[in-house]
Structures are given as structure tokens and as C-alpha cells.
């Protein structure tokens, strides 16, 4: 076991991938000379050279599309997009090419590409750098969407993502980069198909992912002192959803709160909720509750931003309402 930050775990994952496979290279904006917007790739260019750590122009569509083309030509590219809001400039390539070509070509071409990007709010970066749009990507058939919420997943999800023959999008929450955690360096990757129970419990299931996991765990701790045993599930994989684990838990606890930093309308939380109603309706003993971001473009001022985001207090309140309705 080694203790490291989430940022360091992301870097070590990339390093290990570059060492393990000559087909792997990384490209993105300011990843080489600058060291990465969130300093994930700092030092990698010196170690692996400018051929494999490639700075790109500010051309999201071109370099994501180039990643797709290179993947189809036999490489295993890792493309970094600075933040999820910028990924919209490459949405055409992700949706119309990466996600569709395997099916559209009748299975002749696969797109073994990994795209990493930062997501989420909390750093006062306002309305064009702070959103949680991973739920949009989870809408698209053909993509695998991962949200590492722990340092271990940050360290070990990349290898199986690169081994996947399909395009994989990795969403790294900006508030997690400084979080420290234990990592088993020798683990041969982790599974990228299942949700995980991060804390077992009996009274209610709290379903979350990514940057909201620490908040949900903090809420569960508070609730425990109140005699409410909350089971916390980390979805980890946003597409395809592991509804088996989620539904089995809700069928045991009969109650559920979904925490998602995306907006509520048409969200991933809405999808999980709908699927639970489809699969375990007769196990529900209370309405499913959701704790999501306020429906505003993320504001700059700290107090406004905090008011817009899910936090432990709001999760605790939602759970109490579900477990002991007033």
C-alpha cells in the first residue's frame, strides 16, 4: 500500500500505461510544456518525450478526432480535454464518430480510445468551467463512461479502459485531485463494469459517483450517529449502469437517495431513479429522493456556488426525510 493523491494516482496510471504499451500516447492542451491544467501530466514529457506527450493547438474537435483516427490506425491514444465544458467543442467527434463508427461499419472498426477530462464545481471557476455533464455522455450508446471517485480507481481504472476495444471517457472531479488515499500499486487493474458498495448499511441506499462520494460518506457517518444505517454505493461506471448492484441494495433497504452533481432535469440521477422504479417498484417503502445541483449555470461567488451544490447536510436531510418522513 502506498499513500498518494488522486492527482498523483492519475499520473502514475498514465506513466504505467506509457511504459506498458508503445502504442499508448497522450495528447491534449498544455499537457507537455505546461504540465497539464491540473498538473496531472507534469514531468511526463521529460520522461517520455514530445512524441508521446503531445501538446495540441486549442482544437478540441481536431485532436479528439485525431485520437479516434489514430485509435483506428492501431494506436491506443489517451486524449486529455481540460474540462468537460470544452469537450462540447469535440462533441461531434465523440458522438458522430467514436460512438457510431463501430456499429455503422457493421463491426469492421473499433475505436479503442480513452478520453480523460476534469468535471465538476467547487473551485469558483464559474459557468464555463464547472459543470457536470458526464450524464449527457452516459446517454450515448457505444461509449463507456467512468467516474473514478477514489484514489485507487484513479490509479487503476486507466489500464482496463485502455484495454477496452470501445471509446472510454474518464471523468475526474476537480475537487478530488488533492484527496489522498491508499493504493495497491501492484493491482492488475480494477473492474470497470461494477458499482461498489463503499459503506454497507440497512436503512437506506445512497447512490452516487465521482466528486459526490466523499460527501455521501460524510453524510452516512453523521446519519450513523443518529441511528440511521446508510449504505453508500459508488456507481463508478455511468454507462453501462450496473443496475444489478444498485437494485439489489435498494431491494434490501427499501429506500433510496440519489446524489448527482448534474442538474436534476434529464439527469443521470433521473435515469437511475427510473430504472429503480422499473425494477424494484414493489420493494420501495418511500419515494426515491434526489440531491442534485441547483438548476443554474454555476455562479462564481463562493457562497452561491456552495448553495448550488449537493453537500453532506443536504444528503443527510434527504435521507432523514426518506427514512423518517415528517
Amino acid at each position, binding site marked *: 500500500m502506498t499513500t498518494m493523491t488522486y492527482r498523483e494516482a492519475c499520473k502514475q496510471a498514465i506513466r504505467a500505461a506509457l511504459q506498458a504499451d508503445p502504442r499508448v500516447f497522450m495528447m491534449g492542451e498544455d499537457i507537455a510544456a505546461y504540465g497539464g491544467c491540473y498538473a496531472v501530466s507534469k514531468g511526463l514529457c521529460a520522461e517520455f518525450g514530445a512524441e508521446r506527450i503531445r501538446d495540441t493547438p486549442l482544437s478540441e474537435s481536431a485532436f479528439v478526432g485525431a485520437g479516434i483516427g489514430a485509435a483506428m490506425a492501431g494506436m491506443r491514444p489517451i486524449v486529455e480535454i481540460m474540462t468537460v465544458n470544452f469537450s462540447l467543442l469535440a462533441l461531434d467527434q465523440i458522438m458522430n464518430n467514436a460512438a457510431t463508427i463501430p456499429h455503422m461499419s457493421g463491426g469492421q472498426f473499433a475505436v479503442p480510445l480513452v478520453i480523460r477530462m476534469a468535471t465538476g464545481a467547487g473551485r469558483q471557476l464559474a459557468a464555463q468551467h464547472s459543470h457536470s455533464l458526464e450524464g449527457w455522455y452516459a446517454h450515448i450508446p457505444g461509449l463507456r463512461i467512468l467516474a473514478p471517485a477514489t484514489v485507487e480507481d484513479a490509479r487503476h481504472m486507466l489500464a482496463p479502459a485502455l484495454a477496452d476495444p470501445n471509446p472510454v471517457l474518464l471523468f475526474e472531479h476537480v475537487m478530488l485531485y488533492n484527496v489522498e488515499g491508499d493504493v495497491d500499486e501492484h493491482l492488475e487493474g480494477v473492474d470497470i463494469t461494477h458499482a461498489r458498495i463503499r459503506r454497507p448499511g440497512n436503512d437506506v441506499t445512497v447512490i452516487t459517483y465521482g466528486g459526490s462520494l466523499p460527501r455521501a460518506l460524510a453524510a452516512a457517518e453523521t446519519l450513523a450517529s443518529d441511528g440511521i444505517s446508510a449504505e453508500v454505493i459508488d456507481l463508478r461506471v455511468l454507462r453501462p449502469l450496473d443496475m444489478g448492484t444498485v437494485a439489489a441494495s435498494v431491494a434490501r433497504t*427499501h429506500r433510496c437517495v440519489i446524489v448527482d452533481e448534474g442538474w436534476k432535469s434529464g439527469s443521470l440521477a433521473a435515469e437511475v431513479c427510473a430504472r429503480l422504479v422499473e425494477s424494484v417498484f414493489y*420493494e*420501495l417503502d418511500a419515494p426515491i429522493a434526489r440531491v442534485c445541483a441547483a438548476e443554474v449555470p454555476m455562479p462564481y461567488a463562493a457562497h452561491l456556488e456552495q448553495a448550488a451544490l449537493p453537500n453532506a447536510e443536504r444528503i443527510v436531510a434527504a435521507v432523514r426525510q426518506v427514512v423518517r418522513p415528517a
Partner: protein
Amino acid sequence: MPSLGPDMESARVVEWLVKPGDAVRRGDVIVVVETDKGAIEIEVFEDAVVEALVAPLDTELAVGAVLARLRTKGESEHQASPDTPKAQALPVAPAPAFRPEPPSVSTARLDAGAPRGATDSGHQRASPAARKRAADLGLDLATLHGSGPGGAVLLADLAGLGGVSRGRRAGGFDAAAMRRVIGTAMARAKREIPHYYLGQQISMAAALDWLGRANENRSVEARLLPAALLLRAVGLALTKAPSLNGYYEDGAFRAGEGIHVGWAVALRGGGLVAPAIHDVDKLNIDALMSALRDVVARARRGGLRRSEMVDATVTVTSLGERGADTVQPIIHPPQVAMIGFGRIVERPWAVAGQVQVQPVIGVSLAADHRVSDGHLGSQFLSEIERLLNAPESL
């Protein structure tokens, strides 16, 4: 009261799962009766409407006694119960046109007026889980007061209701009664059946090796236990030894109409049941494993079906990893054979003139001399050995 076995004379109703006015479909479980062998669910064999529950709870009733009156489709009330006095039909209370209320109306409800949870339309608020549990317990939601928002009935409101609670069902078996039954049956077996016994040691090296490799690539849910292999081997070997599979009744042997193996499950706290796994010879190894898991789990919880309690054509007992080395079984009448497996232990074993340490299991057969003899029994055990030595063919 249906007859659930040749030696059953009476039983007690412990739980109704339906109420008058309920529509039931063929195959629905409608009542639980406590027999000497434990709690057994009784299913209905036609689509019908429940007219009246006749049998009182917790009273010993003879086989053949009326438990309930059902009206099948097409029958008028009159045809179904020509001699039922009108008073007796009252609890059924088919809703008259002018009272749009649920069919079963308790006095409590009338006294209390509309319960808090009833909406203006008369719909009782309840969580989906409470609704399902109430249906399982045969409770009418309209008679309940809920603690949830707007008086909605929640799961917690149903705790302890419904006659026999889950806890009781889980315990399901009356230990003293069960001991009596085992005693009676075994005494009869020792008295009437001329047993002969055969035993054999079989190497499990190939079987366990195969199993280990098979399990490596399986998810936890799909993993196999040695028991599944043993059961599969018995099922296949029985196809070649039909005179070990069936019943001896009225002075004659009647071959079983399928190979339905009763699997002996020891209950914690004493006693045992041997629910039948049907058509063992026709199930592949995965299907057998899941059937075993299912039947053992339900035996523990007290959720066995009637057919599982009476259909076995032969019985197998496997003592498992913490059991004795060998067992000398006593046949369960009117069956004609029982196969026993001891625990798997490491023993010196000669292979091609060399002594090796191998996992070994002791298999034994008790069979009825009125139907078969030792030569056939020996062939049967050899066949089991052959099958276990070629596990890939299982």
C-alpha cells in the same frame, strides 16, 4: 386438507394467504399448513374466487377436511355452496353497488371512519413495498393505519401482522413433531424393509481438480460445490439402476416416473427434511447446482412446496466437510434405496502401484432386498465411481 404424503393423517392451518373475495389463479399458494414434517405451502389447482375460509387456525384437521370454499369461473354462488347458510357467506360481503368500498370491512374501520391514509377516492395510501407485503400476508390495507406521510402504510406498520410472521415461518418446523415423524418412519423402515448395505471408497482427485478449474473462471454466483457433482453422478447412475428408484407399496415395486432425488438437509437445532429435486438426470451441472442452492435455502427459511415434500423417488444424504467418514443410511419408506456420502478426506491411495495421497470419499448404499440385490447395488456404486473419475462428462 390435502394428503401430502402416504403417512400424513392430519395437519393444522397456520396461515391464510388469501381472504374471501380474492381471485386466485392456478398455482397460487393460498394457505400454509403445519404438518409433522414442517410448514408446507398449499397451492390451488384452478382459477377461482375465494368464497369462504372454513378451517380455523391452529386446529388439527384430518386429511379430507374442508379448508375453504372456492367458486370457479362459471359457477354461481348458489352452485358452489348450495347448503351454505346465508349468514356464513356474510364475511365475503361482495360489494353492493351503493357502497364503493373494499370487499372486506372490519368493524374497527367502521368505528374509526375513513383511515387517515385513505384518499378522497377511497384509495389507501401505501408504499409499494407495504402493498406487496400486505398482499403476501393476506391483509387488507383498508383496515390499517399507516405511520407514513398522509397516513400511508409503510413496511414498519406491517411488522408482526398477518398471523404467522416471517420469523415464525423461518422457524417453520416444530422440532418435537418432526422428531416423532422421523422416529415413526425410521422404525417402520427398520421393521419392514429388509435392508442390504454396500460401501465403497472413491477417489475424488479428478472431480475436485475439475471443479477447481471450472470455478476459477466462474463468478461467485455460478460456482459449483462437490455436492452438485455427487448429485449429478447419482442421477446418471440411477438411469442404469431403475430398481433403486421408486416405491414399494402394497406388496409390489412401482418404478418412479422420474428421478426425483430427495436431498437430506439437516436443520440447525435438530431434525431434517429431504425436499425433492426433480428430474435430476435431465439437469446439467449448473442447473443442478442452482436447484441445490435454492432448495437448501428454502428448507432453511421454511419455504418448501408440497410437491417437493412428497415427490422424492430416492434419497441422498451428504454429510459434508464436517461430517463423519461414512454413513449407513436407513431407507425412507416407501422408497427403496438411499445413498450416503461421507466427508472428503485425504487418504493414501494406490495408483499404478504407487501410493499417493488423494482426496477420498466414502459412498454407501442402503437398498430394499424385496426389490433389488447386492449385485445390482455394486454395479450402481461402480457406475458412480466411473462417473466421478470422468468429471468432464458430468
